[in-house]
């Protein structure tokens, strides 16, 4: 029998509605799994057990009084994990950084406010989080805690954030569904800023249906975020018949760790074809240009955003910045400094325009674009320091979508050497429903997303 913590959001809501089980039982099942597994995986910074149980009890009372309450509170009683870079009022928020140790936000982020009817635990990566598929490997970052928590069923879904692949990379390496919504679709208010022109809050889930469901709750215009957009999240469709899937040759011409990864994506494209979709070639700039654009723009925005951490109003002194933050700020300060601004920053912004225009052209011939999420398998713990742009190189296929602000979902589409492989589906602006519908059709006809890491089953 499926354990309650292994259920999807959809199954959990159906069970709560039918009163087959309670929210308290859902939360207890997740807490029991956290107690069993998190000593090994280390996904959570903080587990808000008492708060979650109290919220679950309150949810159960509301559901008993009105089983239709999900129409108003779509995620009532559902246990979720949240990356520790969403400001949560009265609860220490650290972004897993020493500079924020002890910081207790006096306000709530818009996303966690909207999820208030859910039941939150708190996830992130202050220490090394491990990949549930192989504890000697990383889960991918930086929403790795959130992804590992979902993949090991220590929560029903999780929230992460994606600046240059930070939802899609760990979703791919942990074998789950990760949605980076369109830039501006979900309010950034209260999300600790990294690169403000590409930061996107988004869900990590067990299915595409769940990602769409959570997106409907968190999307929308927010007066506290001037870059947020209005626009309905369209309903899912159940068919890809007639769908034009763009296949960018340049995304398949990169260096894969093994040709089997590329083959897995090509096989997934055949599955779409069998379901009635048409494949069309599209021309996009090779991802290496997006890597360079991202490196300049992200470092520049980081150096500017991190200026607020002065240790005067909150947090620790600037000496508390870790090496990674220092490295990024140093490059950003250089590329923004007098004499180098035009050569680096303006040039990168111009190439960013070329990337945006390339996608616009591609979307006149295709409805969605499909490519690999990662060119390599999860790397061993400790390997991330080998290059100053190691993260950019492994995330290279995700950076074009980030730079253009497009919605992208990564879903599992096969296995290589026992590791899940992710494929990304890229949509035009406001095109989340299109990519998630295609992802749902794929998940309706395959079972890659249902596989569970076997190595953690026997741990106690």
């Amino acid at each position, binding site marked *: 029998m499926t354990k309650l913590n292994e259920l999807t959001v959809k199954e959990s809501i159906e069970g709560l509605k039918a009163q087959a089980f309670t929210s308290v039982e859902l939360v207890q099942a997740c807490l029991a799994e956290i107690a069993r597994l998190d000593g090994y995986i280390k996904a959570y910074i903080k587990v808000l057990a008492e708060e979650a149980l109290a919220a679950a009890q309150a949810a159960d009372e509301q559901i008993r009084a009105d089983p239709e309450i999900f129409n108003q509170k779509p995620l009532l009683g559902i246990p979720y994990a949240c990356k520790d870079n969403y400001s949560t009022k009265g609860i220490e928020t650290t972004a897993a950084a020493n500079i924020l140790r*002890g910081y*207790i936000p*006096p*306000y709530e982020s818009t996303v966690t406010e909207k999820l208030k009817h859910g039941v939150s635990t708190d996830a992130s990566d202050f220490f090394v989080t491990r990949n549930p598929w192989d504890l000697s490997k990383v889960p991918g970052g930086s929403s790795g805690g959130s992804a590992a928590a979902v993949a090991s069923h220590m929560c029903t879904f999780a929230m992460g954030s994606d600046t240059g692949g930070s939802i899609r990379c760990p979703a791919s390496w942990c074998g789950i569904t990760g949605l980076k919504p369109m*830039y*501006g679709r979900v309010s950034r208010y209260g999300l600790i800023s990294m690169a403000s*022109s*590409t930061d996107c809050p988004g869900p990590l889930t067990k299915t595409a249906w769940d990602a769409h469901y959570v997106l409907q709750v968190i999307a929308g215009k927010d*007066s506290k975020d*001037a*870059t*947020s*957009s209005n626009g309905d999240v369209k309903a899912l469709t159940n068919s890809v018949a007639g769908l034009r899937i763009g296949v960018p040759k340049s995304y398949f011409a990169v260096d894969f760790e093994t040709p089997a990864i590329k083959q897995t994506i090509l096989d997934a494209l055949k599955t779409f074809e069998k379901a009635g979709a048409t494949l069309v070639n599209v021309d996009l*700039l090779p991802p*290496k*240009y997006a*890597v*360079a*654009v991202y*490196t*300049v723009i992200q470092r520049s925005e980081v*150096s500017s955003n*991190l*200026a607020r951490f*002065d240790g*005067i*109003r*909150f*947090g620790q002194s*600037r*000496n508390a*910045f870790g*090496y990674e933050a*220092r*490295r990024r*700020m*140093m*490059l*950003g*300060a*250089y590329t923004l*400094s007098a004499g180098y601004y035009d*050569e*680096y920053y*303006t*040039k*990168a*912004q*111009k*190439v*960013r*325009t*070329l990337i*945006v225009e390339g996608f616009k052209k591609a979307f006149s011939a295709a409805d969605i674009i499909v490519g690999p999420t990662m060119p390599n398998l999860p790397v061993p713990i400790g390997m991330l320091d080998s290059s*100053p*742009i190691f993260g950019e190189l492994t995330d290279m296929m995700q950076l074009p979508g980030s*730079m*253009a*602000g497009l919605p992208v979902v990564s879903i599992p589409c096969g296995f290589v050497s026992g590791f899940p492989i992710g494929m990304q589906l890229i949509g035009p*602006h406001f095109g989340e429903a299109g990519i998630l519908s295609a992802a749902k059709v794929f998940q309706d006809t395959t079972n890659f997303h249902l596989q569970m890491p076997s190595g953690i089953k026997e741990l106690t």
Partner: protein
Amino acid sequence: MPSHKKMSAEEIVHIAGLVKLQLTPQEVDKFSELIPQTLATIDVLQELDTIGVEPTSNVAGLADVYRDGTQSTTLSQAEALANAPDRLKGLIATKGVFDRS
């Protein structure tokens, strides 16, 4: 085109000053090699012709966003002070801006 030679310690300390970082001598040494290395990876941008291309800074497609001119709640004094490590008479104590002595 920049040559991406190792940067001098003076240059590194100057950049660190721009972002108010105090670096250890080891970090100065490390960054003097690392920054040129990273810049070398950015050189691919020069391969693309961007004459006449406008820079993009915002991809949300929005312009002239204003909020309603209505009052909204803000933090109380106690809330605003709660995270400040150094306080003075109900205010946040800062370092002197003009006091350079």
